[in-house]
């Protein structure tokens, strides 16, 4: 268990939709090791996003255990869950969800400010992280002055701000064009490889999922397939081919 960062046992999530009980997750079991890059795939309504939300402590499990770094978050009240979200989880959203009135550096800093880090420490680290995601010199730009790919890079830097145990990415390439999609997936893969960051990513895109180490297929709230991937070259794109040459 020591190298497990996430362990889920018999996770069930039920909620009411009108008069109907809906169960997006049913007796789901999953283990994720530290440093793994995992893709979760499945059709719409299969429970991918619900699973991500439960792992990210923004939704509660109805039954079962969800252990992050050996802490069962399923039993924690909201007064403690926010600390798990702040210290253990980094979120990357499909729509980037940057705060529109803050610039790139301030968006990254905001995550650290919530964690109580000091001003000077925050500024330098935000700059470093933005440099890591390739946005040196763009620190002062507000989201509306950044391209979609750049906005997602800022979101990635923000997710890394507090050195979380897990980064949860919900369709991080869903709103990006092919070039940006390639760049973002490469960035995530690099972060995973070079920094050992554990990433769990929900995606519909086979090519994107192929860049991870492990693919989980969800259907009707259950994992129906769990396989290791053979990492493919990035989308066999012309630019990648050029790089290969």
């Amino acid at each position: 268990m020591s190298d497990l960062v996430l362990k889920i046992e018999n996770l069930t999530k039920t909620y009411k939709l009108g008069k109907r009980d809906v169960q997006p997750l049913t007796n789901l079991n999953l283990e994720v090791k530290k440093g793994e890059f995992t893709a979760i795939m499945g059709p719409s309504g299969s429970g991918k996003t619900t699973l991500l939300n439960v792992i990210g402590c923004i939704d509660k499990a109805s039954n079962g255990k969800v252990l992050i770094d050996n802490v069962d978050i399923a039993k924690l009240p909201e007064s403690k869950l926010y600390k798990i979200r702040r210290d253990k989880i980094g979120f990357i959203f499909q729509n980037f969800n940057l705060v529109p009135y803050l610039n790139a550096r301030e968006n990254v800093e905001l995550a650290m400010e919530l964690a109580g880090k000091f001003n000077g420490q925050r500024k330098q680290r935000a700059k470093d992280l933005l440099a890591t995601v390739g946005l040196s010199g763009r620190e002062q730009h507000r989201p509306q002055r950044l391209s979609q790919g750049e906005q997602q890079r800022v979101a990635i830097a923000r997710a890394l701000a507090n050195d979380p145990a897990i980064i949860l990415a919900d369709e991080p390439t869903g709103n990006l064009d092919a070039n940006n999609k390639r760049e973002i997936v490469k960035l995530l893969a690099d972060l995973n490889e070079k920094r050992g960051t554990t990433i769990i990513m929900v995606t519909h895109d086979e090519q994107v999922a192929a860049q991870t180490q492990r693919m989980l297929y969800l259907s009707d709230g259950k994992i129906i397939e769990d396989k290791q991937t053979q990492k493919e070259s990035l989308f066999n794109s012309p630019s990648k081919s050029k790089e290969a040459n």
Partner: protein
Amino acid sequence: MGILTRATRNLARRKTRALIVIIALSLALTLLIILPPSIDARQVLTQKVINSIIFSDGWINSTVTLSATEIQCDYPPPYLSSTISISDVNLPQPLMNESLYDKISSIPDVTSIVPTLDVLSTANRSYDIYGVPLDNVSLTEDPSILPSNITAGRNLRVGDSGVVILDEETAKNFSVSIGGTVSISGRNLTVVGIEGFEPQGYQAIMSLTDAQAITNATGEASSYLLFVDNMDNVNTVVSRISSLDPNLQVSDGLSQLDAAQPLESQINELSQSAQNNLNQIQATGLVEIGIAIIADVAIILFIMLYSVRERTKEIGTLKAMGASNITVLGQFMFEGVLLSVIAAVAAIAVGVFGVPTLSSLLLPTPQQVGVNPETLPNGTVILQRMTWGSKPFLGSGSNVISASITPEIMLIGLGAAVLLGALGSLYPALKAARTRPAEAMRYE
């Protein structure tokens, strides 16, 4: 970057909306800031009017000194004559002599006469020399001629001679106490009693004979108090006295009462009207303050509710990043308070320059007409109209309505803005804080 930066950036993001909200809030806060000092200034002014009315009322009451069977006669003081200027107020009181006393005594129905002598001393420190007849008849008929406020020693008695009662201040000026001797115009008198300074002021009271001797007015008196056997005979006696000397000022209890009653009712009406006016000012002011408070809270409540709704996704993102409920609550409450404080600063600026104009628009005009009693040369008492508030009175600016925004009011205004901002944004901030992140993330 902190909560202040985030709040100001968020306001700056919607400049027009923020400006409209700040203008609306500052209108409400302007009322809150200018109304209390304006009400206070009107209260002070109206109180002055009421005080003048109360004073006049007391003065009118004090003119009714006689009962129905009493008549007072004397020569009017010279300063009441139209030929005497205000600088001659210390002219000696004209006195009545013994022959007049004898003539009045012989009028049928007059049962007794109590003569008194009231002469201003010519000593450095002026005081009244007041002589009263110390015989059984006079003291029985009119005991009020004796001092009523003896604080040390004893009062004058029947048959006293060569003794005096001084008021406390005059005794101090003479450096004398009970048993001591004072020399007045070369005549030594033993101090047998001290009376309080109020209500008569500086005076030395002694027997009529002593007072006449000191003032070289043997047989003379400044005032006669006559007692008539029957109320029905008062008018006849009055006309007979007047026929003795047309210059005599003769008044009786019934005519004093007749003269005082219309003045009394005039004073009552003015007093009631001033009080009603004050009540109206206070009620209007309180209603307007209430409206301003409700408007301020309501504006902040609605704009912050709108903001929370508009920023649901941002709230979800903040919570997903690990913001606690308290952090979210603080962020939104701070934004509400910031809006209110910015508006308060604008309201203070408006208030400082606009308080006279705005307060006259917002509050009823205070009652500015009071009265002051005046005695005409013929002895008639009238009420003179006096106006406060419109211009400096007798060279003093203190009677003008002078509401101003003091530093204390500015601080109270800012404090109220913080409080109302916090109150108005509390519910929206709680709503934001309680938003479940999963729901917020789904919100579009």
